[in-house]
């Protein structure tokens, strides 16, 4: 009678057997194993490098975005007291982090430095206004704050680098999309190879599978070794990229970090980043493996 519900929790002994079986077929099909592991390795290596680049570019975009400041030029006709009052008002504006004052003479000196001595003529009668450099607490608020300041008395002009940031984001997005397409294509190739490897294993073992089913092995019992085999292929394929990228990035960071001190562009810190990256690569390896073998198991293993 089959009225007793059979508990399908896998026993540790059974799981041990599945692991042994899956490792056995990795050895048996060593060439296919090698091919699929290489495919996963190349894929994940490229994915890893891509992620390193994208994450650091994102970091750069962030710091540029954070560096955006609003330049408020006071009306050249305004006297010192009026500018002081404007500065107070700007400081009091919601969302403003800090305000730095630069006198009209300092502004002119800056321009002379950038554009040349011809401008020193203007030292006789400086046409510029005093300037206030405003930083927002949240860079996203820059535009709103700029608009607000524009309505204040004695404000002559408000300038901020919106174009610069937008352009950078456009470039970033475009390269991200191209990269994603490439990566997806590679992922599919790797999955296809894994699924092929598993198919060969299944075909090589069809007699064994037939007997297993005949004597009453459950479907999961038949399936699990093949899924495990896929997982091993994914993990083996992830190992080299994890190692290589970790070491390379660590060295890159050690070498460049001191030289980039005080620059706008900073490399991401190694400690959380390398760990997260390794986790992601490993996860992708396992995912490719499971999915690749799942496709074959579903198609070729009629259980």
């Amino acid at each position, binding site marked *: 009678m089959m009225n007793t519900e*059979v508990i399908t929790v896998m026993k540790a002994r059974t799981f041990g057997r599945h692991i042994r079986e899956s490792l056995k077929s990795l050895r048996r099909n060593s060439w296919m194993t090698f091919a699929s592991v290489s495919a996963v390795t190349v894929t994940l290596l490229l994915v890893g490098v891509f992620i390193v680049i994208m994450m650091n570019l994102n970091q750069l975009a962030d710091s540029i975005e954070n560096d955006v400041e609003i330049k408020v030029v006071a009306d050249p006709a305004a006297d010192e007291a009026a500018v002081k009052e404007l500065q107070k008002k700007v400081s009091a504006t919601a969302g403003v982090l800090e305000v730095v004052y630069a006198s009209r003479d300092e502004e002119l000196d800056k321009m002379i430095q950038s554009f040349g001595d011809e401008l020193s003529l203007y030292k006789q009668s400086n046409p510029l206004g005093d300037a206030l450099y405003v930083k927002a607490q949240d860079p996203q608020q820059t535009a709103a704050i700029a608009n607000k300041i524009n309505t204040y008395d004695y404000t002559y002009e408000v300038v901020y680098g919106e174009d610069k940031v937008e352009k950078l984001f456009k470039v970033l997005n475009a390269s991200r999309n191209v990269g994603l397409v490439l990566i997806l294509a590679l992922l599919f190739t790797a999955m296809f190879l894994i699924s092929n490897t598993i198919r060969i294993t299944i075909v090589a073992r069809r007699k064994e599978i037939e*007997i297993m089913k*005949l*004597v009453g092995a459950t*479907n999961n019992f038949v399936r699990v070794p093949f899924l495990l085999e896929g997982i091993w292929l994914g993990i083996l394929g992830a190992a080299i990229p994890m190692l290589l990228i970790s070491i390379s990035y660590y060295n890159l960071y050690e070498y460049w970090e001191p030289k980039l001190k005080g620059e706008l562009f900073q490399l991401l810190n190694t400690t959380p980043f390398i760990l997260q990256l390794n986790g992601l690569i490993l996860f992708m390896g396992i995912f490719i493996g499971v999915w690749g073998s799942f496709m074959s198991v579903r198609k070729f293993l009629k259980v």
Partner: protein
Amino acid sequence: MIVMKNVYKKYPNGVVAANGINIEINRGEFVYVVGPSGAGKSTFIKMMYREETSTSGDIIINGINLATLRNKRVPYLRRQIGVVFQDFKLLPKLNVYENVAFALEVIEESPSQIRKKVNDVLALVGLTQKARMFPTELSGGEQQRVSIARSIVNVPKVVIADEPTGNLDPETSWEIMRIFEQINARGTTIVMATHNREIVNTMRHRVIVVEGGLITRDEYGGDYGYEG
């Protein structure tokens, strides 16, 4: 034990292999299934362990209705049925002991139980001395004994044999038949498809003749009875 009611089976290519089969086989019976090739004998046998499903009608094995049995439950049905084939279906890379133990390993029997049961059943079929040999080192009769041992190691209530002596010489066939009689004597139901007239006429048991997808004769202690 085994009941078939109005079982009808039509293959996708249009062949009707069972055209309203009704049969009842009781616990402990020994039944020969005979009939010409392509008459539906194999389908009749295969439907019992659900290698094939019926198009309509009920097949009840041990109280389980195969018509309503969910695919997920099929493994648990198979554990109550031993199957023996003409071509033995042994795994060449495993030795005799391992081939038999395999059937218990895949249903997650404990190692101590496996050891005990395999040794017992190898003694029953007379292969204790050859437990470490591989199938290729054995004669056909010995290989079939391994396959029988595997089919009964889990103590099934029914053993289904599809021409188990088809590949064996007459003398070996008798040996194999004696083992089946022994198994039957312990209370196991045996359903055996065969073409061996001599065996059917000598070891008298119930004979079911399948022809054209129908049971044309069903006789206790009957003989082979048809020319083919």
